């Protein structure tokens, strides 16, 4: 996407191993300036690990190799001080469980002003004023009187708003939202998504949205990467993937979405579970669960190659284009079709 110079972050052949067990098998990924990229896949596919590794946030026992470049500057293997200056200031991250992601014994205001002091040198009243503005901006009602409260005195949705406020404090160029709505109930999920969309429009920061909710991804993102067992298996624009998912795994994810329009139909779950990284099947990791599996899939790993329409795909026997257009479109929820048509 775009020329190389407009790329904000480039991951090249990023690999992660825990105790010698490879969990990330060489991820190539770019995030453009101001772009919104979705990362989808079931739990345990390496979506979060990719970005935790990129920011050096994995525990010390994790072996990380490859390249992570921020505007051409290499982060992978760089000293701790370099990573610390990037975290929060250039790349901020919010997490899945907002209530336990905030420090329970420190006042909320202090946790936000801490980030302001760190990245913008604001202290005292200036920091307090700016923190109140950020709390206001993310939709915390009556911020002034709640500045000195603790995390347990806020609801889960409000905690995520506070996490976002804290992330915005460093005026980052990229916000990694790691399943930010998974722990929240449906109406709050929608509010947080709207907030993320609105903030991106206002600040122009790029967003990486990690989720297993394709509907949410379609609302927030322009481009989607589908990950399976530590590899990217399909990558394309939201429109491409929603109109015609080519990888059987992507297709499976769509078939598992409940539809809100048309007649009721039973959901089609993907059989089986994500393989344990310790015992990955030979060949394509998805082959044991794949409905379109070939004999060769069990022995040969298909490479991720560009397709005619610009998407990347790693499959020996992708879903034919003509077939998906008829099969998938009626199954997509209305709001997804809407966004695909925009």
């Amino acid at each position, binding site marked *: 996407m775009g020329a190389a110079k407009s790329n904000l972050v480039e991951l090249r052949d990023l690999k992660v191993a825990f105790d010698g067990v490879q969990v990330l098998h060489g991820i190539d990924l770019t995030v453009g300036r101001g772009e919104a990229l979705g990362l989808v896949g079931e739990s345990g596919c390496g979506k979060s690990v990719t970005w935790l590794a990129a920011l050096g946030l994995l525990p010390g026992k994790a072996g990380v190799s490859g390249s992570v470049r921020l505007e051409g500057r290499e982060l992978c293997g760089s000293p701790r001080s370099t990573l610390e200056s990037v975290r*929060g200031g250039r790349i901020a991250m919010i997490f899945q469980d907002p209530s336990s992601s905030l420090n329970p014994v420190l006042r909320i205001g202090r946790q936000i002003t801490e980030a302001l002091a760190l990245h913008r040198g604001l202290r005292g009243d200036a920091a307090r004023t700016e923190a109140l503005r950020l709390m206001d901006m993310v939709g915390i009602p009556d911020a002034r009187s709640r500045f000195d409260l603790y995390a347990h005195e806020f609801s889960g949705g409000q905690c995520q708003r506070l996490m976002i406020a804290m992330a915005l404090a460093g005026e980052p160029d990229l916000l990694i939202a790691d399943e930010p709505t998974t722990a929240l109930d449906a109406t709050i999920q929608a509010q947080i998504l709207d907030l993320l969309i609105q903030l991106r429009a206002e600040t122009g920061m790029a967003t990486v949205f990690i989720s297993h909710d394709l509907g949410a991804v379609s609302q927030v993102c322009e481009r989607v990467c589908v990950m399976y067992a530590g590899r990217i298996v399909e990558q394309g624009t939201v429109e491409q993937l929603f109109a015609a998912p080519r990888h059987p795994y992507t297709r499976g994810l769509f078939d598992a979405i409940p539809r809100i329009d048309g007649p009721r139909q039973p959901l089609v779950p993907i059989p089986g579970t994500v393989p344990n990284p310790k015992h990955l099947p030979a060949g394509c990791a998805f082959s044991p669960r794949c409905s379109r599996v070939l004999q060769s899939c069990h022995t040969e790993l298909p490479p991720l190659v560009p397709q005619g329409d610009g998407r990347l795909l790693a499959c020996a026997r992708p879903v034919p284009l003509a077939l998906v257009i008829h099969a998938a479109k009626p199954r997509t929820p209305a709001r997804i079709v809407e966004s695909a048509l925009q």
Partner: protein
Amino acid sequence: MISFVLTRLLRAIITILAVVTFAFVVLRMSGDPAQVMLGPDVPQDVIDAFRKAWGLDQPVWVQYLAYLKSIFTGDFGVSMRDKASALDLVLERVPATLQLTIPALILKLVIGIPAGIYAALHRQSFADRGVILLAILGFTIPSFVMGLILVLVFSIILGVLPSGGQDTWVHGILPTITMSIGGIGILARFSRSAMIEVMGQPFIRTASAKGLKWRDVVWSHALPNAAVPIVTIVGFMVGSLIAGAVVVESIFSWPGIGRLLIVSVSNRDLAVVQCILLVIAATMVVSNLIVDLLYGWLDPRLRSRAAH
């Protein structure tokens, strides 16, 4: 908050009452002070006179009520041996005991906690394994064995430190070290596991993701959270400032509460033993109360729970 303090106080009083009652009953069941005090070959009328003088001829429940009544009026009885006020006898021994237990407590805190935290932050390293090994050795070796080993090494073989007595501060070194080793081990283990637990929490990842320096993540985000479990253990240690020295005082012939307790128990000096147990129970209860209040100060979640 007021109701919280009041319930804690009521509970404290009940605890002390239970200790006092238990001590009273057990002491009277476990031997006759008249026999012990007067020796084996005393005529029966002397024994009877002794019992009558100390009220031991009364039924136990009458003695008990009389005892309760007197302690509520601040009268803790008279020593059968010294004929002096039991409370005075006990209180005059307190400074000697504190001379050992307070420096020992300080050693436990300044060595145990940093060692545990360092080990937690350098998990699986050589230092971590060393700390675990020493901590286990420290709290598994009983203090009487540890005391004898130290005497053997520093008094007998090296001849650099005295093995007993209370003449100078140098005499306090070996007993203080003996007393602190177990506590250092326990605190190191506890601080280590508390810190490891906290460092694995999501909010620590948040603090790192914010761009905070490692040092600030540890100091301002992890330590305040690890404080609660550590304070619990320190509370126990403060509570045993008086009681914790019994064995060590005997080994090093240190004239503190612990030695008084042992002498008084073997003499069946009822009032003194009861008074010591009361003082011990009171320090335990008070330190527990302080720990409970500290919890609320350290962890706002507990504070709001206590308020409801």
